[in-house]
């Protein structure tokens, strides 16, 4: 019975092939069988986690607490020097020039990405905005968030910075950045579930070593980062504490 690996659904579509190559590499490296299962959205992924179908996950920090506390996962590594950052943008033609210009009743275009949405709402707080006095338009992809803004269907949009920076010039020139977060301390992590515990040390060593091999470095580049850093138990506890301070 192969193990099942999944990836937080917020990665850019250009990285899908990279995750399949990573999975092939990982199976060869550890001589174990792993099936990569990608979910279309966070709800589907959380249902799979709830049903104990997942053994390895590149997890969104928002899910870290649930994975550790309720499902017995432990974090092994996190991407080197790569934090989750958010861009709050408006249409290039919008009259809104700063966050404080936004008024109660605005429409926010966003995906179901939980940490992006949490940080996005925190950035809107100085304008006295919250989930009670704003209208959320949840769409499937960041490209649709951009489309909502450009077509004037929403007033402001929340984007994962990586996704925003991958937009074509045509899309980017029709948008304007209001705020680009520089939080630095929130990041995804690669986590292993209870059934994989016998492999975690070999797994952690193999992942850390990737940066030392030119071919394996190319796999990392296709995932959007340059290497992995060990995330120990206390680092994970700190991430959980940090997320706890941010959730209202």
């Amino acid at each position: 019975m192969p193990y099942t690996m999944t990836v937080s659904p917020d990665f850019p579509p250009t990285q899908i092939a990279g995750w399949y190559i990573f999975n092939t590499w990982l199976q060869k490296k550890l001589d174990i069988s792993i099936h990569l299962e990608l979910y279309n959205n966070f709800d589907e992924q959380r249902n799979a986690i709830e049903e104990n179908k997942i053994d390895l996950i590149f997890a969104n920090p928002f899910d870290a607490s649930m994975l550790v506390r309720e499902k017995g996962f432990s974090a092994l590594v996190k991407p080197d020097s790569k934090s989750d950052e958010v861009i709050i943008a408006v249409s290039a033609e919008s009259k809104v020039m700063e966050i404080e210009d936004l008024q109660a009743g605005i429409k926010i275009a966003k995906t179901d990405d939980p940490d992006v949405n949490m940080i996005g709402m925190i950035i809107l707080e100085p304008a006295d905005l919250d989930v009670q006095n704003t209208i959320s338009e949840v769409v499937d992809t960041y490209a649709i968030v951009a489309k909502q803004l450009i077509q004037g269907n929403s007033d402001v949009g929340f984007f994962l910075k990586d996704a925003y920076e991958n937009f074509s010039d045509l899309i980017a020139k029709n948008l304007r950045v209001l705020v680009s977060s520089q939080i630095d301390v929130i990041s995804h992590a690669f986590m292993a579930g209870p059934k994989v515990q016998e492999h975690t040390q070999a797994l952690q060593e193999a992942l850390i070593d990737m940066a030392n091999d030119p071919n394996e470095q190319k796999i990392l580049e296709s995932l959007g980062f340059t290497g992995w850093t060990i995330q120990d138990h206390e680092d994970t506890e700190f991430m959980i504490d940090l997320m706890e301070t941010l959730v209202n």
Partner: protein
Amino acid sequence: MENMTANDVPEPYEERQIQYWDASSRTVLLRDVEVPFPEGKLIVSRTDMDGKITHCNQSFVDMSGFSEDKLIGEPHYILRHPDMPAAAFKDLWDTMSRKEKWHGYVKNLRKDGAYYWVYATVIPNIRNNEIVGYTSVRRKPSRNKVNECISLYAKMKKEEQA
């Protein structure tokens, strides 16, 4: 903790004595200059059980005006502004002792005598059911809420001094 000196604080400033919960005190030099909270950033720090800083991020360093080396090991009240009522911090510590999360608007004092307002959240770091320290995250506050707190805290200070 060292007194603030004119070497770090440009004139004009107001000199005041501030008394802390552990009976220590120091001279602080206050300037009526507000430094705006940086857009899109969070100020993050952790303290030990005694409230001494064990970790802080770059935004903490930038906004406080102190170097990281100077901050580590210092009590978190190095940022205490004398306009803050003691009752606010009593409420924080009472909340921590119940192992709950605390939120509040706080006016912080910088090394250069200026100040900055934050919306702070503090949680106890619980390991094996024991509190081992505290994590605090400060974010940009709503100006309306800050204005409410300016008058509320002034009233509370007046009552504390009566």
